[in-house]
């Protein structure tokens, strides 16, 4: 009991003594654990899909079909296996304008009385009336409308009567997600784009071809007369929607597949099933996870690197303390335990902080597109999850401190007491090469050569940071592409909520990455400058100018940073591919620019500490250090 | 020059005065110059009178010179001397009392006396050190010179201590 108390007191005092380093350690580990917590939370949400809640609340259909004539629709509604139906509802194509923004919509004509299948649930306002339209919730967000605003559709003005959610389509912008296309003999496939043979005029390229994909179509409901009023000889009514409830909901796939397979031609119906829609909903969340997990991985790496640098700096001072403890009778066990205890205490504390932060931040991400009700909120973290996160923190702390702790506790006592720090390494070849270089390069290269482990850590830091930035840039480019490239429409300019949300998350991750990387870089520079004090003072005593010394210190960092930035580019691309499986890459020049940006930032961060390091009083430094 | 030294030098083999002189020069290096020829011969005759050495005739190659060799008593005395551990006395008491006397009588400033003595010792040290630097590495004389230098340094340390002590004493009034 006494030993444990002693260890605890020693560790606590040491933490107070080096508060700044303790804080940095906590920040590093907390950032990593917060990201991981958010990732875990998201994965927990998949199984609690809001889609199902919405389906229950809106009497969601098992199968939705779009056909080219009302008669066809009615025939389908009376097919065997159908228990209930609503429709056929005319679906007109229109362009909506509001506040300088425009988009394409399917305007579905509805009765003012509630339907038996798929009655969208109002989240604001009231249901359709003559001159009053109801807009799907995510689309309304993107468009920026609220109840009471006036919108223009195909030149006519309407009031926004209400805002609603439905389980019959995927929320904007993935309206056509979940529709059945091109089946193979083996299985049906769901598209994430509106089918080419969907007979909607604005999908036409004008030369007889249709665009294969359109994600930027919104859903709007209005009275049937109003909907028909939108059509014209140029924009004829060609589509009817019917919502089916089957006697056996699980049969929905088979039902749709059967009819799809036997249809053909330009008038074949388009189906979507509730399973397809549910799967699409799930993808939304997995997508998000796909963004977070690489982020958490990168952060964990950075956290380990930070902790390693922090710990490495303290090693010689630690070695003396070890020698002292052992000289007064402490066993190697106690000694290692003190060192580990301190770092583990901080890591666990950081894990708890990260858990709390991640749990509180999770709702920002688990509101999948606002279209489905029952946003997940803050789901409870299971005990296992908590253990996972704390486990990560412990792994990070151990990875950085275990080896030095064991080595120090095993070494000879007198050697530890006399320890003057790890002697610098000698690399004969590098020394020879450096003598051919100008003085700053000579100094910088030799500085890196004498502390290879720290140089490696610095390079790793830069590699991870560059990878993170590359991933974010690639994702931004991908998002921009989705927005601008997919539809050849003028105007538009609506934000894509899914991509937005992904971008938000990625930005959050990147901000954390960059903060951590900056702190890490500053710290490594500080450690380098401190370690180089004697060498710098000596060089100056021999006649080097302080500008040569400060340039040398900056060069030392840049020499490590360069390979890191180079490796970071492919690493970032790899992570991007993991997050966005089929995305295309942005131009290489952008990625290279990112790497160069990191290098420049590194230099900027190093300049001030380097200047300070080069201006120390020569005599003071030399007298205080031993030969 | 201690008599026993000359006696011991003869223990290797009987020698004439001039051979002895040469061997002493070898061992003493530059310091050998300061040893007077006369001193050697005087010592030799004293030792002869005391019965420790005896003339050995002229069988030696340097005919015409007196060659001396050890007697039995002489050998005994050498053996005795070799095992004695008396060490040459440092004569600090004299200087110490000089300072005390000067201070008590008010004749001179003890610190001034110490300074003057320091200067003299430093000069001597310089001379000896110069001689030592001129000797080849590992010479016997070099070893002797090192000993002299270290002694002088020790004395100088003591003089510094004297100076500090007398300055403190003066401060306390």
């Amino acid at each position, binding site marked *: 009991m006494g030993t444990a108390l002693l260890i605890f007191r020693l560790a606590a005092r040491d933490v107070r003594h080096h508060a700044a380093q303790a804080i940095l350690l906590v920040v590093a580990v907390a950032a990593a654990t917060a990201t991981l917590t958010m990732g875990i939370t998201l994965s927990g949400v998949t199984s609690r899909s809001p889609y199902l809640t919405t389906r229950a609340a809106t009497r969601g259909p098992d199968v939705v079909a779009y056909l080219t004539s009302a008669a066809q629709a009615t025939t389908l509604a009376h097919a065997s296996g159908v228990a209930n139906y609503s429709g056929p509802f005319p679906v007109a194509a229109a362009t909506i304008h509001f506040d300088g923004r425009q988009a394409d919509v399917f305007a579905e004509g509805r009765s003012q009385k509630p339907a038996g299948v798929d009655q969208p649930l109002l989240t604001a306002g009231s249901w359709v009336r003559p001159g009053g339209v109801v807009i799907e919730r995510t689309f309304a967000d993107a468009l920026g409308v609220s109840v009471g605003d006036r919108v223009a559709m195909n030149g006519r003005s309407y009031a926004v009567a209400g805002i609603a959610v439905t389980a019959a389509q995927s929320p904007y912008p993935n309206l056509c997600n979940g529709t059945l296309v091109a089946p193979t003999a083996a299985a049906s496939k769901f598209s994430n784009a509106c089918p080419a043979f969907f007979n909607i005029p604005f999908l036409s390229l004008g030369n007889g071809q249709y665009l294969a994909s359109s994600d930027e179509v919104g859903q709007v409901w209005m009275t049937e007369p109003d909907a028909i009023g939108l059509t014209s000889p140029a924009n004829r009514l060609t589509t009817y929607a019917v919502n089916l409830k089957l006697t056996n909901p699980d049969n929905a796939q088979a039902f749709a597949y059967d009819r799809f397979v036997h249809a053909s031609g330009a008038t074949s119906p388009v189906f979507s099933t509730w399973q397809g829609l549910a799967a699409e909903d799930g993808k939304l969340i997995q997508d998000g996870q796909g963004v977070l997990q690489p982020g958490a991985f990168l952060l964990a790496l950075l956290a380990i690197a930070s902790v390693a640098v922090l710990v490495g700096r303290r090693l010689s001072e630690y070695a003396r303390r070890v020698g002292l403890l052992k000289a007064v009778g402490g066993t190697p066990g106690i000694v290692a335990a003190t060192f580990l205890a301190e770092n583990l205490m901080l890591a666990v504390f950081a894990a708890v902080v990260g858990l709390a932060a991640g749990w509180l931040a999770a709702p920002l991400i688990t509101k999948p597109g606002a279209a489905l009700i029952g946003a997940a909120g803050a789901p409870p973290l299971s005990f296992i999850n908590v253990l996972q996160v704390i486990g990560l923190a412990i792994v990070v702390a151990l990875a950085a401190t275990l080896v030095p702790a064991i080595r120090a506790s095993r070494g000879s006592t007198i050697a530890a007491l006399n320890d003057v720090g790890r002697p610098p390494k000698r690399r004969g070849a590098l020394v020879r090469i450096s003598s051919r270089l100008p003085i700053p390069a000579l100094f910088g290269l030799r500085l890196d050569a004498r502390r290879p482990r720290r140089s490696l850590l610095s390079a790793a830091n830069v590699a991870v940071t560059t990878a993170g930035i590359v991933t974010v840039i690639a994702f931004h480019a991908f998002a921009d592409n989705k927005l601008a490239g997919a539809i050849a429409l003028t105007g538009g300019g609506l934000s894509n909520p899914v991509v937005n949300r992904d971008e938000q998350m990625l930005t959050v991750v990147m901000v954390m990455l960059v903060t951590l990387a900056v702190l890490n870089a500053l710290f490594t520079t500080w450690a380098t400058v401190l370690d180089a004090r004697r060498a710098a003072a000596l060089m100056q005593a021999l006649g*080097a100018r302080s500008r040569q010394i400060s340039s040398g210190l900056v060069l030392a960092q840049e020499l490590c940073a360069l390979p890191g930035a180079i490796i970071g580019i492919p690493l970032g691309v790899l992570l991007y591919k993991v997050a966005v499986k089929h995305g295309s890459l942005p131009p290489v020049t952008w990625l290279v620019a990112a790497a160069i940006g990191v290098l420049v930032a590194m230099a900027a961060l190093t300049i001030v500490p380097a200047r300070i390091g080069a201006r120390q009083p020569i005599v003071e430094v030399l007298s205080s250090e031993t030969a | 020059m201690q008599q026993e030294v000359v006696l011991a030098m003869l223990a290797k083999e009987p020698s004439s005065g001039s051979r002895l002189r040469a061997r002493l020069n070898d061992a003493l290096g530059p310091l050998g110059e300061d040893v007077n020829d006369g001193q050697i011969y005087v010592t030799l005759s004293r030792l002869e009178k005391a019965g420790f050495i005896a003339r050995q005739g002229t069988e030696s190659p340097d005919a015409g010179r007196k060659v001396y060799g050890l007697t039995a008593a002489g050998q005994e005395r050498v053996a005795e001397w070799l095992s004695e551990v008396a060490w040459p006395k440092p004569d600090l008491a004299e200087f110490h009392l000089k300072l005390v006397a000067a201070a008590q009588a008010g004749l001179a400033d003890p610190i001034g006396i110490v300074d003057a003595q320091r200067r003299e010792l*430093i*000069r001597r040290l310089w001379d000896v050190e110069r001689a030592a630097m001129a000797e080849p590495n590992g010479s016997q004389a070099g070893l002797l010179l090192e000993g002299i230098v270290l002694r002088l340094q020790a004395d100088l340390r003591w003089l510094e201590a004297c100076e500090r002590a007398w300055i403190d004493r003066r401060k306390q009034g």
Partner: protein
Amino acid sequence: MNENSSGAPIVRARGLRKEYGSGSGLVRAVDDVDLDVAQGEALAIMGPSGCGKSTLLHLLGGLDRPSAGEIWLEGRQIDKLSERGLAQFRRHDVGFVFQAFHLMDELTAQENVELPALLGGRSPREARRRARQLLDQVGLSDRAGYLPSALSGGQRQRVAIARALANDPQIVLADEPTGNLDSAATLEVLRLFDGLRTAGLTFIVVTHDERIAATANRMISMRDGVFVDEMRLTGGSKRNLANCAGLGG
């Protein structure tokens, strides 16, 4: 105080002062010191530890700035020089030998000696040649490739001396050059200094060891930041030697 007929003093200081702290904590390490050193002269500054002699040497070598006073080296005033000018100075005109050697642990003896030459702008090949020559001069040509950890104290100090000579300085300043050495190693260094002195280098050595002063021809005693005494070394008097050895009478 002492100007050679051959010209102005190569080192000249007036009213030199170095202070630390302030108010009641003010310490004057060097307190109003005047000094002239002629070219080719070897000066030893002696005093107990803490008397300010090391500080004085740092000021003369441009490693530290005085709180007051003026210093001229080789006719140029250095107390007002910019950092850059001082660096230039330290590179070419002054060679400094530290008590703690201050060699770079990860460089061989030769690489240590090359360093000032490289700083001085010589090509790597020339620097290497100069280093070899100097190591030869100090008697360490067979240890050129050794790390300092593999050298004895005396050998390390000789490397440090060789390094101080790398750029052919006019003045060599040495701070306790034999402070960490045993008797035999001290003799090695003394011989070296003597040889350099006869070659015409100007020497200022700070020490509390009288032996090193034997290589000088002038000795100044320092206490509490001021000069208190001065001696010139006259020719040797061998009569004294025998007395010291107990060979008298």
